[in-house]
């Protein structure tokens, strides 16, 4: 038989078996889908967490608070000076008045409190956006900051990098844990899929024995089962992707501008990742079939 003919035979047989044994197939496919769904959900979450971290990184700032008495002209001059430093992406001078306005916007309930003050309650400041690529560790950055600290106009430097440094460790932890989790979950998914396919193979061990006795070669005996495993895995992967997408849409629809969307549900998985998930299902199904049809296993 030519390879093409053989493949056609495998696929036809596999399809027929899937349909005739639909109860078992459905069970297998659903289990695979559940496993991949969990794995995919983690991929989704950890992806988005990572991109959140990237975004935060991009927004990393150093805020230089000036002494209350600093005139606005000094503020502009200092801003221009800060902007010349290497690794500085943007400098936004915030006058005391602007700071108060912002405070009133952010905490409207407290705005009349602030309004009652005689002098400007908040100091003017320079909000310096750092280049995210070098934000954490540009050489000379510490010395540069220290030189600012000694200036008479500066009262305090609030360095986002300090807590971003902490955040970075937290993020590193989350990422490490996330990678471990996704790996672990996908590993578990593959194991589960292989187990399930193997269990279904036990159901067919008698049939396989008969095929051997009748004179079929191993390739022709196993081909259909391999394809069956592959198809079950692919279908499971498709179902998992569909369910993920539905879940994502649901979250988006319900928690549009809420916590979720801000921290997690930014983007759906990319095409490659969805393809990866589906192919992973297929690969696990195939692997399970291959593992379970080793001669000794039956």
């Amino acid at each position, binding site marked *: 038989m030519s390879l093409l003919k053989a493949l056609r035979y495998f696929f036809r047989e596999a399809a027929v*078996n899937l349909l005739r044994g639909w109860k078992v197939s459905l069970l297998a496919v659903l289990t695979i889908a559940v496993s991949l769904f969990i794995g995919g959900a983690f991929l989704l979450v950890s992806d988005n967490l990572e991109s959140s971290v990237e975004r935060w990184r991009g927004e990393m700032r150093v805020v230089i608070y000036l002494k209350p008495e600093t005139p606005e002209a000094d503020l502009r001059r200092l801003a221009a000076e800060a902007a010349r430093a290497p690794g500085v992406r943007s400098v936004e001078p915030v006058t005391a008045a602007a700071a108060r306005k912002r405070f009133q916007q952010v905490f409207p309930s407290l705005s009349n409190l602030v309004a009652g003050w005689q002098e400007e309650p908040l100091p003017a400041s320079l909000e310096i956006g750092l280049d995210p690529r070098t934000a954490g560790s540009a050489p000379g950055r510490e010395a540069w900051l220290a030189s600012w600290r000694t200036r008479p106009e500066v009262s305090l430097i609030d360095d986002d990098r300090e807590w971003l440094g902490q955040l970075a460790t937290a993020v590193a932890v989350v990422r490490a844990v996330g990678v471990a989790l996704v790996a672990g979950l996908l590993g578990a998914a593959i194991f589960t899929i292989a187990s399930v396919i193997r269990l279904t193979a036990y159901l067919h061990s008698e049939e396989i024995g008969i095929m*051997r*006795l*009748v*004179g*079929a*070669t*191993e390739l022709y005996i196993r081909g259909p089962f391999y394809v069956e495993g592959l198809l079950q895995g692919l279908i499971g992967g498709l179902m998992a992707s569909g369910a993920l997408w539905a879940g994502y849409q649901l979250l988006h629809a319900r928690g549009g501008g809420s916590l979720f969307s801000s921290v997690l549900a930014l983007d759906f998985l990319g095409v490659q990742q969805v393809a990866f998930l589906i192919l992973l299902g297929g690969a696990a199904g195939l692997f399970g079939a291959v593992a379970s049809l080793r001669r000794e296993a039956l």
Partner: protein
Amino acid sequence: MIQFFHVSKSYPGGQTALDEVTFDIPRGELVFLTGASGAGKTTLLRMIFREEVPTSGQILVNGRNVSAIPRSKIPYLRRTIGVVFQDFRLIARKTIFENVTYLPQVLGVDLQEQKKLAYQALRRVGLAHRLNAFPPELSGGEQQRVAIARALINDPDILIADEPTGNLDPDLSREILRLFLEVNLRGTTVILATHDRDTIQRVGGRVLTLDHGRLASDQELVGTDPPTLDPLAAEAATQVPEELLPAPEPPAEEIPE
């Protein structure tokens, strides 16, 4: 065609199924294999297509040492041997048609030809109308006949039938036996394991008798009523083992209509 040299077989449990069995079946012969329940008939047949391997001794099929065939070549041996298993061994998930045409399909025979072959084989056993049923939907005798059709479809060099008429009524049994003789006439070596002494006596031919794993006798027997297509040239009658002697019985009484 099939030669056994001092073949013994002990199962792991300690059962000795065969004990130093030696015989030689030339190409084109039809041989009956008989013996009490548990005598080792099925074990002997299984070794021919290497479902079992002997504990000691050698088996040559078509000149090849069966035990020495590498695993990957076993299917090619089996394709030349049609087997009717004592327990049928039909694939429950496949239809009768698919069961019968399984080997041709694997061999790449095209569908039209498969259909023709299946129809012919099933008509010979009287089951052409049940092509699309599944084995569990058939009666015991029907399943047995499907197993026979499957064994014959590939025009095998050797036909092995293990108790092929145990679930068939006498008329059908006779039909099936005629079929086997016909196949034999066309050159196929046939080995029939059976308990049916009447058939053996009627048809005659070479009879191997097993007793507790030993080959108790290997003799030619002249049939009392050989079928019309006389496949075996008349040969001198020879000794018959005691096992084959009918129990003392009065002649069958003519029953009034």
